[in-house]
């Protein structure tokens, strides 16, 4: 998995590309988010548009990241969820846990609200 982090008006947009699966991308996701949290970044938007595959391990890491950020008083939201990843989050009822956006501008505005 490849990651790219950019600042968008104080919100850290984490762009993920590729697989978030066991042994390939799951730990990388955790390390990327932990690094942001440890440096005091509290508003994180994870762009999933180019995520091709996720498994239960990747979902677990996503949940762990959400908890880490929330416990530090921050917010982690999701952007551009591919339909099949949306399905995977829906069947485990995690879709109700995450704030999910289709538009980056709306997502960024939600952090200011």
């Amino acid at each position: 998995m490849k990651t790219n982090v950019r600042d968008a008006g104080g919100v850290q947009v984490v762009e993920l590309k590729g697989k978030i699966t066991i042994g390939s991308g799951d730990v990388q996701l955790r390390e990327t988010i932990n690094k942001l949290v440890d440096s005091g970044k509290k508003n994180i938007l994870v762009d999933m548009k180019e995520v091709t595959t996720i498994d239960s391990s990747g979902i677990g890491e996503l949940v762990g990241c959400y908890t880490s950020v929330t416990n530090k008083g921050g917010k982690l939201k999701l952007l551009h969820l591919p339909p099949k990843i949306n399905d995977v989050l829906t069947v485990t009822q995690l879709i109700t846990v995450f704030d999910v956006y289709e538009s980056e501008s709306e997502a960024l505005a939600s952090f200011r609200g």
Partner: protein
Amino acid sequence: MSLSSRFENIEMVQHLCSKLLEGRDVPEELRHWILMALREALANAIKHGNQQDTTKHVHLEMDIVGDTLAISIRDEGPGFDPEAVADPLAPENRLKTSGRGIFYMRTFMDDVRFRRHASGGMEIVLKKTLGAVNEKEEDRA
């Protein structure tokens, strides 16, 4: 087929399963969920069964009989009680970072069974009816 306990082998097995499904007119959506369940079962065998001990193997059989895909995956680990795995939908478990693999297998396949194999290890048998095959055969008839 026997594989060493490496996560890198998961995609190779997914590719083999995909080839097995080729020519059976399996809709892409159905194929995707079968491959995800297969991934979860293999990851479970490698991580929890064999505890990533690369000297231990994962034993695999895949076949289509009639309109049903059957996949058997056996590890060489000490085994576990699948009923003891916590319900990932329970509110107290929803934010846990693990414990969803078996749930996904059961969600995406028609039948998922666990048993301790006579020669040791835990065996998972996954079955899925390939509905499109029926339709295709009916069309031919």
